[in-house]
């Protein structure tokens, strides 16, 4: 393993989703040096994989890629993708951060992003960018609009056939590449580590991990994206175009039985948005949203909800007790309506989307004793003074790492963390 030291930065930002991108840009624009550490091979986080965003219905890629490009070209911002934080130590004048750059098995400085390796590779694997709905090659650029446009070789699946190396015009496939460790000294750190959705099998009654036509909300984002895995909305089991689709709200939020008692804040709105997009893509489809409370509380959200009702999307106040399927893999929902007091009944749909809740990506901060709340999100040390502050001096938090929230709320936290980091450094000077 190669050791490189003497990396110094003003602020280290962990994560390059929209929270990390925005805080890095705000700090860089203020004239300070920023280093972003991103564990995935591309920047953009969860946002770059979304279809469109509520309530503006902007194409997510179209508003995220300019931020990704701005970070790439920003003279004050350095981005290290495919790099993991291993340890953080608090030192007298800031932090020491050990990171490990994972091998792409591609000489990055030489690569010209031509995808010839990808075309030549004979091995297909599940594409995690498509949340398992599509396939990719064992060596491939992570997704169309990835930044940087560098391929990654999945070493564990590579059959060492050498086809990629032969196809590469720059001779930059390097099977012997090793992880590179280095230590970065930073004056301040911003945690923008974001979220994962609750795993699909968590709520046993919903069998989200076994029923073929029960998919997660992030999978349906991909189905609806113009550059999605199938290029159209199909259900996974048989490729049939669904015409009776249901959303199950609070599928893994507000539910003590799975230890996610809190509201995930975005699910109502993304379900409404997806339902509207589905109604556009499949004008004849029936779309039902089973919900407890519709929480359209952000700016313009209630009006968006009203628009969805006017479009004929069916909102049913009901709890879903259980999901099973029939012989054709049509999901059957056992629903308990709250509106008319009728007995529990079974409703069959041909595609069901579980509005999965949000969990923090990290519950430990690399050896640093960061105070978390009872659900594992980073705790604000002074919520009514400046919510970006944590219990550790010089360590700030923004976005979903602090609790579930939507994109505008995340942007409003990213700038806040950037402001605190800048003033912290200035105060030390």
């Amino acid at each position, binding site marked *: 393993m190669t050791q490189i030291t003497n990396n110094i930065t003003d602020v280290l930002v962990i994560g390059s989703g929209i929270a990390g991108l925005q805080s890095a840009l705000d700090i860089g624009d203020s004239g300070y040096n920023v280093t972003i550490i991103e564990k995935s091979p591309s920047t953009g986080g969860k946002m770059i994989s979304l279809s469109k965003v509520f309530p503006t219905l902007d*194409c997510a*890629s*179209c*508003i995220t890629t*300019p931020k990704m490009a701005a970070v790439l070209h920003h003279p004050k911002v350095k981005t290290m993708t495919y790099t993991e934080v291993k340890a953080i130590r608090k030192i007298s004048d800031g932090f020491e951060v050990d990171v490990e750059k994972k091998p792409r098995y591609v000489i990055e400085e030489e690569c010209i992003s031509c995808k010839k390796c990808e075309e030549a590779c004979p091995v297909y694997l599940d594409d995690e960018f498509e949340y398992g709905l599509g396939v990719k090659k064992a060596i491939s*650029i992570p997704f*169309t609009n990835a930044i940087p446009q560098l391929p990654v070789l999945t070493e564990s699946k590579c059959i060492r056939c050498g086809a990629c190396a032969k196809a590469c015009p720059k001779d930059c496939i390097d099977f012997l590449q090793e992880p590179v460790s280095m230590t970065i000294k930073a004056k301040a750190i911003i945690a923008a580590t974001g979220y994962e959705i609750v795993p699909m099998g968590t709520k046993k009654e919903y069998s989200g991990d076994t029923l073929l036509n029960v998919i997660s909300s992030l999978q349906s984002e991909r189905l609806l994206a113009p*550059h999605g895995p199938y290029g159209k909305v199909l259900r996974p089991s048989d490729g049939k175009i669904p015409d009776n689709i249901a959303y199950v709200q609070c599928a893994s939020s507000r539910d003590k039985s799975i230890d996610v008692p809190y509201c995930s804040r975005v699910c109502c709105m993304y379900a409404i948005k997806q339902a509207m997009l589905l109604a556009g893509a499949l004008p004849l489809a029936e779309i039902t949203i089973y919900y407890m409370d519709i929480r359209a509380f952000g700016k313009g959200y209630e009006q968006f909800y009203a628009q969805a009702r006017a479009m004929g999307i069916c909102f049913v106040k009901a709890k879903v007790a259980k999901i099973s399927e029939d012989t054709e893999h049509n999901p059957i929902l056992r629903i308990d309506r709250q509106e008319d007091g009728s007995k529990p009944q079974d409703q069959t749909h041909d595609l069901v989307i579980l509005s999965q809740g949000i969990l923090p990506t990290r519950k430990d901060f690399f050896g640093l004793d960061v105070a978390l709340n009872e659900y594992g999100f980073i705790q604000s040390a002074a919520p009514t003074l400046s919510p970006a502050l944590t219990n550790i001096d010089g360590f700030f938090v923004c976005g979903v790492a602090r609790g579930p929230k939507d994109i505008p709320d995340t942007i409003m936290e990213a700038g806040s963390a950037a402001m605190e980091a800048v003033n912290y450094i200035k105060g030390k000077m």
Partner: protein
Amino acid sequence: MTESVRPKILIITTNHSSYPGANAVGQARLAYDSNTYILRVPDPVMFPEEFYLNAFEKGIGGIIIMSSGSDCPYEGAYPRLSARIQNVYNKMKAKNMDINRLKLTTICTVCTESFLKEVANMEQVVSK
């Protein structure tokens, strides 16, 4: 197959949306005909009506304006653009030109399918 004799199609794209969209078509290795010439602009609202008519006069067969539509970062640009294109249509009609040779559409950064469809449609128009 030589395309040089085929009428040329000018594709006007925006820095913001459709130019990256055209790149996405290439990144996906999708194919379309080579008689297509992509120009990028901050926003097509800058072109006067004569720009289009002059281009046709110079021998351009068809023009597709791929605007950013509602994603347009410039205030008021899209309504102005679409009003202007209406005027161009009127002038084209007055000259007995086929108005299908000019198409105003919206293409986003990942709208690869729509990009190909618009090009294919214009190919039909210009091959007439």
